[in-house]
């Protein structure tokens, strides 16, 4: 008659049945995805659109408040696509009521609290920001062109800024898994 069946044949049979089942599954699973190449495209999109958002915000009420709204909107939408975004921006705005004064705004969308150190020529101030928060400091008696230095975490930027124009510095990092793009927008 029949000899004793070995247990390993039943284990093999179970594994084969599982393999057949899961080999057929991907053909029936709906997947919505984007390729990793989209990260540079999105970075390019925002490199043009963030300065434009600042211009529209300044036209609206003379402050970069709506730039913060736009940054938060982008980050929320990107999180829904498993694309991480970190952003910190600094905006220098001439004080319309006090010629010679500059108000410098900072907005933090890094996802964590941060201290932003600002130096205008030789005057120094610090702004402590929670995530999704903006604040500002005013600098008095600033020359028509001044040197603005920005430092936060382990990043530093320094450049010449015209006092009577709105100036923008934006740090942005887009990431998904091991892929990331880091951008600094100066405007």
């Amino acid at each position, binding site marked *: 008659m029949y000899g004793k*069946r070995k*247990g390993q*044949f*039943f*284990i093999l*049979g*179970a*594994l084969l*049945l*599982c393999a057949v*089942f*899961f080999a057929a*599954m991907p053909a*029936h*699973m*709906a*997947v*919505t*995805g*984007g*390729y*990793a*190449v*989209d990260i540079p*495209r*999105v970075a*390019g*999109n*925002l490199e043009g*659109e*963030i300065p*434009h*958002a600042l211009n*529209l*915000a300044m*036209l*609206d009420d003379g402050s970069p408040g*709506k730039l913060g*709204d*736009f940054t938060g*909107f*982008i980050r929320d*939408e*990107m999180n829904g*696509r*498993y694309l991480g975004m970190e952003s910190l921006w600094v905006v220098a705005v001439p004080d319309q009521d006090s010629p010679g004064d500059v108000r410098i705004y900072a907005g933090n969308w890094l996802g964590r609290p941060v201290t932003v150190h600002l130096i205008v020529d030789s005057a120094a101030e610090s702004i402590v920001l929670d995530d999704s928060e903006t604040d500002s400091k005013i600098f008095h008696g600033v020359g028509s062109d001044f040197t603005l230095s920005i430092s936060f975490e382990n990043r530093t930027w320094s450049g010449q800024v015209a006092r009577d124009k709105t100036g923008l510095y934006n740090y942005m990092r887009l990431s*998904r*898994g091991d892929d990331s793009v880091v951008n600094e927008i100066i405007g």
Partner: protein
Amino acid sequence: MRGYVFMLEAVFAGLVLIGFLLYLAQGYARVGTVPEHDFSGILPALDQEGLLRGHVFSGDVQGLQDEITLPGFQHSVQICAPAGACTGQVPDADNVWVSAHFLAGDDSYQPREVNLYVWEA
């Protein structure tokens, strides 16, 4: 007979375990590395040519869809404002590729996200 029962138990246990893991991982998948077709440049190209913003800020989803031709593929467009107010449809299809393009506004602050969905015909 007992061996067959053990085999079925092992199959069911494997199905339950792996099915649970797949349920956790569903919804989004990184698809390959370099794609045969790269759709991510379509919306930026339309924006550069000045063919995007007019449709977006007037809410003209159909007009924007008509600007895009993709032989061998179907596509749809969705225009979304903050707080999830969207016009246009998300397709009910398998293996849909999606690209997003952000706009801050035209003459005034009017943030919009434009989504392009592409799938095989």
